[in-house]
């Protein structure tokens, strides 16, 4: 490749190690910044890998620019944490043209990449759905809080997973909140408040991530309904694990561990640079976290 012919001036570690660029689509969510940190921490562990991390602030064009900036700095490989971005053909094209290996973490893009490591979001959703149908043998009304916007397919995969299980069971009715929770606790709170105003008889809430669940939990507590409504989330955010352990109405989450995915992503990139042939797509398990096993997933050193 043309890039390999150029002297790799920009990377001091490149004599005996690698420089790896991390292109984050957006860091302003705890899951994504956790991912970024996990990658950096794993690089630290390796000792001979230097990380250059960029943030596109949620702007697809900026992601493309950032990747171009990374190529300017002559990184050896690029890890893309695509977050809510659906696909990035131009980015993948320019990386391909530069002949650099690409590892996708969490978000899988269609197109040409070297390797992907991430969760199966629909499976996480199904897992939650099964938990809820077991926890509520009499069925009832289940509310769904989505993160939005509508083009976020990570969220919709999770929701579809839940729906696929619950709508097959006639005892359940599903209420989808009309507005999005924006993936944050504040949004989860207001959406839950609105849901409770129109639906007194909700038995359970599923949110597309834990942050929104934590907000929803406060709204439920404020409404004095903590005993009647159980909560199911996704991610395994520290506060959620704690709430599950404390035996609150927060009952379950699906672990989508940024630490694990990030670390594996970096390992994968190093393997590729070392010349190994690697698995193209790796689905990281997303174990169901409940009161019984939450302790084992708590990680005081974790970044998320």
């Amino acid at each position: 490749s043309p890039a390999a012919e150029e002297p790799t001036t920009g990377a001091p570690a490149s004599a005996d190690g690698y420089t790896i660029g991390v292109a984050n689509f957006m860091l302003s969510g705890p899951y994504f910044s956790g991912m970024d940190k996990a990658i950096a921490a794993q690089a630290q562990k390796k000792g001979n890998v230097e990380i250059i991390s960029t943030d596109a602030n949620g702007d697809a064009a900026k992601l493309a620019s950032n990747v171009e900036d990374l190529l300017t700095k002559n990184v050896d490989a690029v890890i893309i944490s695509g977050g809510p971005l659906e696909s990035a053909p131009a980015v993948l094209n320019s990386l391909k043209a530069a002949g650099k290996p690409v590892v996708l973490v969490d978000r899988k893009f269609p197109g040409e990449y070297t390797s992907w490591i991430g969760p199966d979001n629909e499976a996480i959703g199904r897992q939650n759905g099964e938990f809820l149908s077991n926890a509520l043998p009499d069925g009832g009304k289940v509310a769904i809080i989505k993160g939005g916007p509508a083009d976020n397919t990570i969220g919709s995969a999770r929701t579809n997973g839940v729906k696929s299980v619950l709508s097959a069971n006639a005892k359940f009715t599903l209420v989808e909140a009309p507005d999005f929770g924006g993936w944050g606790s504040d949004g989860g709170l207001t959406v839950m408040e609105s849901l409770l105003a129109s639906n007194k008889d909700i038995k359970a809430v599923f949110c597309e991530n834990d942050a929104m669940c934590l907000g929803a939990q406060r709204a439920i507590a404020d409404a004095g309904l903590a005993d009647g409504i159980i909560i199911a989330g996704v991610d395994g955010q520290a506060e959620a694990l704690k709430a599950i352990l404390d035996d609150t109405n927060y009952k379950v989450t699906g672990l989508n561990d940024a630490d694990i995915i990030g670390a594996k992503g970096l390992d994968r990139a190093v393997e590729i640079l070392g010349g190994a042939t690697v698995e193209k797509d790796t689905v990281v398990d997303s174990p169901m976290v409940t009161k019984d096993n939450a302790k084992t997933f708590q990680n005081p050193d974790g970044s998320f």
Partner: protein
Amino acid sequence: MSVNALPKISRELLTTVAFTALIVLLIAVAAITTENFLTQTNLTNLLKQMVTTGLLAYGMLVVILTGGIDLSVGSVVAFSGILTAGMVSSLPIPAAMAIGVASGIGFGLVNGMLVARFGLAPFVVTLASLTTIRGLAFVYSEVPIAPEDPAFFTLGSAMAGPIPVSTIIMFAVFLVGGVFLTRTPAGRSIIAIGGNAETVRLAGINVRRHIVLAYTIAGLCAGLAGVILASRVGIAQPSVGVAFELDAIAACVIGGASLAGGKGSVRATFGGVLVLVLINNLLNLYGVQSFWQQVLKGLIIIAVILAQRTNRVRA
């Protein structure tokens, strides 16, 4: 008797009446067409949901009156919230909250100094501080902070009878703030500066100091809003508050404030807050899907300001 025969002062009254009528109409429609609007839960929701926009709108109004604007309030909400939550582990809760509010005051001061002392355009100054303060919130903590002490939730969730304490705080800000703007020399000076700063200077009033004061008030309101929001959600997030400034500005302008300064009323701004909160609430109660909500929200805002304008012209 024709409307035109009324003296000018009552024309303004008429606009106020028309605006009030609009809000009453919105409420009536809501009450009749949905079964849930008048429930205790929903009304409490409404009262809670107006707090952040309300606080930010008052602060924004003060700045807008001087002819300025403060785009940084959303970032200040995030910063003061996360700072407070971070301080809770080492300080008593009231002290931590005071520090959060103080950080808002500090940012307001800096904004005000840059605008007043150096004569920089408020839009760019506060756009820059929007970026910087957001960055600082993340630098302080990249991850959300959830204080363990349940007393942290009190401010945001306590009720005084049927009314949330946070709403009462907001009402108090509007009341005191209304008196400040209509009945104190400093308040009047702020309005006059927006009308004609040079005249105010020639009248021997310190224009710069009053501009700094206005931004400080906006910072104070944003800091307070951040603390209350963090307490209400129970978790402080560095990413919270994006685009909050837009609702605050919209509330002021729906209430008839002029972005050129010198024109705007506290009462009407509160009306603007009500309109915005009601629109959101109604669209949710009707179960309108998210992006149609966006489409409609924009159209309703246009309709409201068109209706307001028509009233004004006819009156």
